[in-house]
């Protein structure tokens, strides 16, 4: 096994073409996308600048007071009452929304002007504003009720956008959605007819402190990494094809080593290469772009765990591809895989665009691809380092591994005998 491993890894390191694909390309993409789309994530992208009217039909103070009165009637201890009242005041959703919109990041992207509803609608008509955010009556009260007491219904934000301003309003919607995600409520956006989007907020109090979001570099480091590890599969399969064509494979057979040793070595080599690749991508990205905090051991432990599982899954995928390549005796397998299948997997896995707006079916398929599952595991770990949330995606990856292995064993030409 050792001989195979050393040889496979050595061959890969000498292959400049593969190295470019496996390391240089994703790194370049991380750099380009990370810099150029920084605005989408943090708001200094001038090109997307839009004028937005903020219409508040909600009386914040009244809402907070109503909720606090509500607390009084619950017969809680003095301290609990006090704490809840405090919370209601500091966690006021409207205040949070306002401070988000006024924040340095967003204010560079969206120019907010507060006005009355009628005036806002006139301005929208006259196209002097691109969109209206409406904070409806009772927003604070129902949001707080929802947050503090888990009352159903939830509060809604409405976005009205002018016709034809859709790409911009999409950005706005995603910012608001980001807002919702930032305070980590469950959220869903449903688009209504007439370019009207509703951001529903509902959720519980316990998660309100987890204030985290992602930078563009974090987003693209992960999404490029999970995509480009797939190329290891085709690289290894291409190597197997070369061995078959150049009859090195015959030499290996003549050494009378168990054929499965060859296959498993390929899988292990692929997994090892993927792990090295992921370490380099995450490491370099952190080193050069300060993508991740370098000093949090727990954080990196989680990243390493996900990376190991992802590496193993690409190993299994590679075994499957090697078996298939040897079976059909053609390098068409790795060629088709790297030219088309990888893009497809990357797309449904969410490496190109976030899957939030995609149909359910695509999201389901994506969640079963090793890259898609790993992507959501990474993201969930980055937003909230909770091991329990990893079990879902990681379990899916493991099941896919078993499938790949079974297929590999079924396809692998058993040339142990005099065949």
């Amino acid at each position, binding site marked *: 096994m050792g001989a195979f491993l050393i040889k496979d890894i050595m*061959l890969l390191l000498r292959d400049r073409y593969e190295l470019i694909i496996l390391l240089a390309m994703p790194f370049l993409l991380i750099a380009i996308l990370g810099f150029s789309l920084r605005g989408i994530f943090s708001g200094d992208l001038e090109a997307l600048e839009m004028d937005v009217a903020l219409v508040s039909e909600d009386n914040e103070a009244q809402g907070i007071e109503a909720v606090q009165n509500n607390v009084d009637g619950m017969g809680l201890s003095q301290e609990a009452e006090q704490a809840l009242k405090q919370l209601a005041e500091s966690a006021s959703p409207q205040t949070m929304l306002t401070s988000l919109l006024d924040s340095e990041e967003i204010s560079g992207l969206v120019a907010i002007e507060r006005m009355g509803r009628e005036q806002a609608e006139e301005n929208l008509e006259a196209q002097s504003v691109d969109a209206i955010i409406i904070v409806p009556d009772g927003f604070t009260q129902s949001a707080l009720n929802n947050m503090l007491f888990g009352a159903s219904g939830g509060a809604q934000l409405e976005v009205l956008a002018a016709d034809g301003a859709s790409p911009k309003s999409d950005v706005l919607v995603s910012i608001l959605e980001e807002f919702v995600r930032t305070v980590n409520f469950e959220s869903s956006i449903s688009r209504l007819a007439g370019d009207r989007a509703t951001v529903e907020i509902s959720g519980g109090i316990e998660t309100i402190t987890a204030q985290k979001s992602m930078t563009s570099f974090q987003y693209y480091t992960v999404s490029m990494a999970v995509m480009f590890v797939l190329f290891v599969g085709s690289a290894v399969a291409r190597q197997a094809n070369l061995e078959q064509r150049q009859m090195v494979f015959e030499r290996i057979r003549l050494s009378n080593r168990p054929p499965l040793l060859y296959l498993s070595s390929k899988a292990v080599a692929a997994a090892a290469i993927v792990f090295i690749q992921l370490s380099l991508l995450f490491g370099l990205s952190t080193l050069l772009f300060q993508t991740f905090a370098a000093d949090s051991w727990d954080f990196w432990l989680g990243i390493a765990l996900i990376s190991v599982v992802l590496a193993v899954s690409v190993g299994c995928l590679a075994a499957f591809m090697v078996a298939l390549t040897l079976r059909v005796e053609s390098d068409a397998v790795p060629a088709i895989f790297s030219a088309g299948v990888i893009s497809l997997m990357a797309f449904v896995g969410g490496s190109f665009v976030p899957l939030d707006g995609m149909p359910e079916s695509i999201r389901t398929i994506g969640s079963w691809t090793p890259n898609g599952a790993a992507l959501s595991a990474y993201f969930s770990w980055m937003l909230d380092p909770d091991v329990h949330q990893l079990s879902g995606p990681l379990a899916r990856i493991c099941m896919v591994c078993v499938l790949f292995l079974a297929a590999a064993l079924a396809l692998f030409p058993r040339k142990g005998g005099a065949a």
Partner: protein
Amino acid sequence: MLETDKLTKKFKDTLAVDDVSLELRKGESVGLLGPNGAGKSTAIAMISTLLKPSSGDVRLHGKSVLKDPGDMRRVLGVVPQKIALYEELSAYENLKFFGRLYGLSGKKLEQRIGYVLDLVGLADRKKELVKHYSGGMQRRVNLAAAMMHEPEVLIMDEPTVGIDPQSRNHLLETIRRLNREEGMTVLYTSHYMEEVEKLCDRVYIMDHGKVIAQGTKEKLKAILSDQETVWIEFDQSYPELFKKLSEIEGVQHADADERSLKLIIPKGMRLLASLFHEAERHGAQVTNVHVQTPTLEDVFLRLTGRTLRD
């Protein structure tokens, strides 16, 4: 020690190897001679357990190797027709890998690598990548790799195709030494009869999947004992004269080149008188006449009516 029994391989509609029975005795050097497409490589693939015969058997020490190829694989060193090496690795790294496949390690491995590199004369260039070697050097490493596990039998499939004369001589010399001095049993495949003639004690001649003749070189040439090959050189080309000479009664075969003519005639035929007579009539000048002892090439020509290079 090694034999094939009515070995046959059919690929869809081509009968690549047809009823071939060979035998290899210990310490022997045996040639398998035949033109391209004769079925040599296919036969070798079956002997070396890489290809399943359609019918027939391969036996090592009287025991069939079809079910359990392990023993055969341990004994054989196979030099394939292609350069079966990793181009992106150096000669040393290739040998190390193949050595480790055979369970060699540590000092033993290094010693063996040193030995085979010396054998093929590449010790001082072992660090270079195989892809930077000349064709001849690649062939030499190809042989070295087959020697890593100290095989008893060396099977070579056209190991000298496409290499420079110097490398070719080196390779042939190496094989000869292995056979003569180290008692290595050799099965040597080629379509160059000079090589087989130089290297091998016994020869099988294959054509269209069949063995059409076999025996020691002397025995095979005895097929032609009733014939002589006359080789005549002229000062320039005389197509008409060549044609005339070919048609002289008794000439069995004629092979014309630019300025020379090769005639196969029955032993004792009085050719020279008519040769000079005809030459004078055409105003041609004979610069050289040479009566050759037959070669294996001639044997093949006689048996098939074609040359090995056809």
